[in-house]
């Protein structure tokens, strides 16, 4: 190891030292993991090799690394055939069959002319009408038709940039959370804002010392999970009221429902396991000091793992939820 460190060029070492992983996506087959970092690179890891019986140090390194964008890759998404990556004001689609080949480059029209190109922070796929919701630095949610790549509609209403998006398929609704502290619920058919929840105004979840932004948002039938500056809280959508607030100290960046639990990550060197009732069941330590992304591979039962990436060049892999198995490294 020491030998290896010595031979690596110091420039490369500095590069790795300051790397952050912002986004992850599993391939449709579930055998590969794509991860995007702050340098605009996407690395492809082979889960089957890393989880295989003859796994070694080398199988924890990416099988392919390529520069996809100028700026950081804040969002990655897999469709049946493509990997979608969002960079500074542009979305690229990469064929899973031939990853190096960039198929499509789309720029949301309103983003092009500003002094600073706004970033894209979130993408969400709506399988109902094969459309993609994109949210970012221009405070708007853009709906793109994946059939022809055209932008169908713009959902305007947020006063600051959008952090996160979630699609409620059954109700054909899109939810968005932004820096302005609001969670907006949009009807995709009419492109109108149905509801606007300003979470920081609810005393139970407000945390003025942190701020009001909403940086994580996820839905499951009638339930919504949101957090950020305010505490992570579980909402009942029909009654539009918070049912439980989770006592987590840091600002959460991503949360997900998993079986009867809630897994959440954010500031702090751990993955938190929470129960619906509002208790924190466990906090599992991991490598990065703050975590940006969390993903569960549901595409393959064979390689069902939880992966976590953040302010480090390591992506921690949990084969069992209760402890870190190993790390994939850039």
């Amino acid at each position, binding site marked *: 190891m*020491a030998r290896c*460190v*010595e*031979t690596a*060029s*110091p*420039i490369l*070492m*500095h*590069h*790795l*030292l*300051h790397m*952050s992983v*912002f986004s992850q996506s599993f391939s449709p087959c579930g055998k590969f993991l794509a991860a995007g970092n*702050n340098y605009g690179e996407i690395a492809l890891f082979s889960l089957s090799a890393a989880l295989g019986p003859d796994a070694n140090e080398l199988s924890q390194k990416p099988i392919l690394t390529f520069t996809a964008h100028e*700026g*950081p890759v*804040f969002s990655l998404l897999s469709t049946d055939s493509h990997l979608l990556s969002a960079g500074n004001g542009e979305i690229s689609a990469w064929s899973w069959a031939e990853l190096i080949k960039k198929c499509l480059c789309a720029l949301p029209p309103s983003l092009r002319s500003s*002094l*600073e190109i706004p*970033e894209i*922070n979130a993408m969400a796929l709506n399988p109902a009408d094969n459309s993609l919701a994109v949210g970012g*630095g221009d405070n708007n949610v853009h709906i793109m038709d994946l059939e022809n790549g055209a932008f169908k509609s713009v959902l305007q209403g947020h006063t600051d*940039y959008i*952090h996160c998006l979630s699609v409620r398929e059954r109700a054909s609704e899109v939810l968005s959370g932004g*820096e302005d502290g609001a969670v907006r619920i949009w009807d995709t058919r009419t492109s109108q804002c149905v509801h606007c929840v300003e979470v920081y105004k609810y005393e139970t979840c407000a945390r*003025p010392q942190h*701020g*009001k*932004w909403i*940086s994580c948002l996820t839905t499951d039938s009638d339930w919504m999970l949101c957090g950020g500056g305010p505490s992570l809280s579980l909402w009942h959508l029909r009654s539009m009221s918070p049912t439980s607030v989770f006592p987590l100290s840091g600002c959460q*960046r991503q949360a997900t429902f998993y079986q009867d639990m809630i897994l959440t990550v954010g500031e702090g060197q751990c993955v938190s396991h929470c129960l619906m009732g509002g208790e924190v069941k466990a906090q599992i330590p991991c490598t990065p*000091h*703050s975590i*940006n992304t969390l993903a569960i591979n549901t595409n393959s039962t064979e390689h069902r793992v939880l992966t976590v990436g953040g*302010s480090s060049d390591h992506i921690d892999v949990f084969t069992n939820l209760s402890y870190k198995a190993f790390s994939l490294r850039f």
Partner: protein
Amino acid sequence: MSAEALKKRKAKVLRAEGVTPEVKRGRGEGDAQVTELWGDVLLILPGRRDPPTLLSILYEEMELERRDPEQDYKQYKQTCESLASLMGEIQELKAAGAKEGCTEVEKRRLQSCIHFMNLKKLNRLAHIRLKKGRDQTHDAKQKVDVLHLQLQNLLYEVMHLQKEISKCLEFKSKHEEIDLVSETEFYQEAPEEISRPLLTKEDPHQLTLARLDWELEQRKRLAEKYSESQTTKEKIAKSIEVKKEHLGSLQPGLNAIMQASLPVQQYLSMPFEQTQKQTEVARHLPPALYVLFVQAKAYGQACDKNLSVSISGDVDEAKALSKPPEDSQDDESDSDAEEEQEKTKRRRPTTGCQLDDKRREMLKRHPLSLCLDLKCKDGSVLHLYFYHLINLNILTVKTKVAPATDLSTAVSAGELLNAETLLSCLYSGDLGQETPNPANRYQFDKVGIVTFADHVGELGHPYVWVQDLGGLYFPGEAPQGVRVGSALSASHMEATMKLLRGRVQSRLALHKQFTSLEHSIVPIAAESQHLFPAKVISRLARWTTIAHQDYMDLSFTKHVTGAGLAKEADLFFMAVLERGTARLQAAVVLSPRYPEVSPLFSLCLSWKGEHSGSTDDNLRAMESEVNVFKSELQGPRPGHQLLTNQLARLCVCLDVYLETDGEDNSVEGPREFPREKMCLRTVRGPNRLKPFKYNHPQGFFSHR
């Protein structure tokens, strides 16, 4: 019983009555009986011899001749018997009661007296006979003795003669040791008068004599020839001497001419003389240094006028060193080792000092060393002294920098021009602490040297590039087209010289920068002005050097030390930036290969609590702003302004950090740091980073 008693009785008789009656009766009887009696007496008392007794003796002697001893013996027997019978008769008579003096008894007594007489005579005769026999034996013995003596003499004589004969037989002649020509050769070569075949063919003695003669003849001739040769040799020697003298007389003249030509050489700037001298000395350099000398000189002539090479050290010692053959060295050390073992057993206290001697011997330097002076554009000179360690067969280097201008002493700059660390990591990972020759490991084990690093201060650093320059190749882990000798040296010369010069220049530049940094001024060159906004409020408060261990102990540098980026060879500094109540600590790792390897900053901010790069994403972004996006900070090549520009950018980033923080808390009244920087957006992206990137002409801050 009766016989014994008889004898006693008889003796008594002899004593009591024998003598007197006999004498009485003797006078009464005839002359013959008297003489017989006197004869008896005379025989008993030989001192008194009267003529008549002598006569009777003569007579008896004559009688003796006539008589037969055998007969005498018989007579004696008879006499004894008859005496015994007479005694018996007397006894019988006495027993029968015969009276004293009766005739019968008297008669018998008379008879026995006669018998006694007879016995006496026989006795005398026996004596005479004995005497006679004795005399005869004595005579015979005398004769035998004489003869025996004669025999002894003769035997001695024989023995002596035999000895003489054997001595003669064993005598070794000198001629046997002389190597003679073979017989056939002798007959062929020797003249007739010496060989004399007629005589010598038969007689081997003569033959040998002849051959010896021939030998003598020949030797005489050879001696003559020898003396002749000697004289010719002397003659030739004399002539040589004369010629030498002549040549010697030429030398001063030539010297004078040389001396006279020196000013001309100097005038024409053709230092023939000097180079000739140098090459003369260079002949005594060890091979590695010679290769370095030749290559450095060649490179200096061809490409680099500011490189000069010189040789220093004791030439005579080097000459002496090159003479003894080195082949015995190994065995010696082997036997030495054994000896040493023995010695350690015997006397312990002295081994320490012996080992010391051995160590010193092992680390011996060649008396000659090479000095390379590398002049930089600004006039400062890098002196490199190359040494060859004879027994380890490696080259070491010592360095010295002579700056052009007198450098003011900055405390934190102390390490920068330190000869020990100046050239470390000239090539990546080349610390110059361990010997690059793998064989040395075993040599060290023998004399108990733990590591070469202990002796580096004294002997100089054995950098790998130094071995390369000297053409020494040691198979290491990375084999790259094995070249040895001059080819290896030549292939490294240019790159290494450039690196050396670059290193000195960067160190000198840093030295200057540190002086102003210590006065809390971050010097920004005109070329780099555009990188920073005009107004920067955060200031550098302190710039100090810290020890490696102190750096390791810092809590906010764990990620750097964990990645192995803080090595012993690096230099460590602590910069403190301040603005108002905020205090930013920046721990800096400065690689010896600066500016090729950029300095690495780790941050820790004390403001509203303690934050570090690992707990605050914005501080992490600031770290990457100076550590990763440094290419724009390098300034004009070779990037000597990198460190100061990094510090300046850190000041700018701190301004941005403080001014954009917590903007939504409008309730808290006046802010400590009013927003002065123009930012498009204060936060961006999922981790809500602040805009640290300065856009030059427009003067606003944006995100990466």
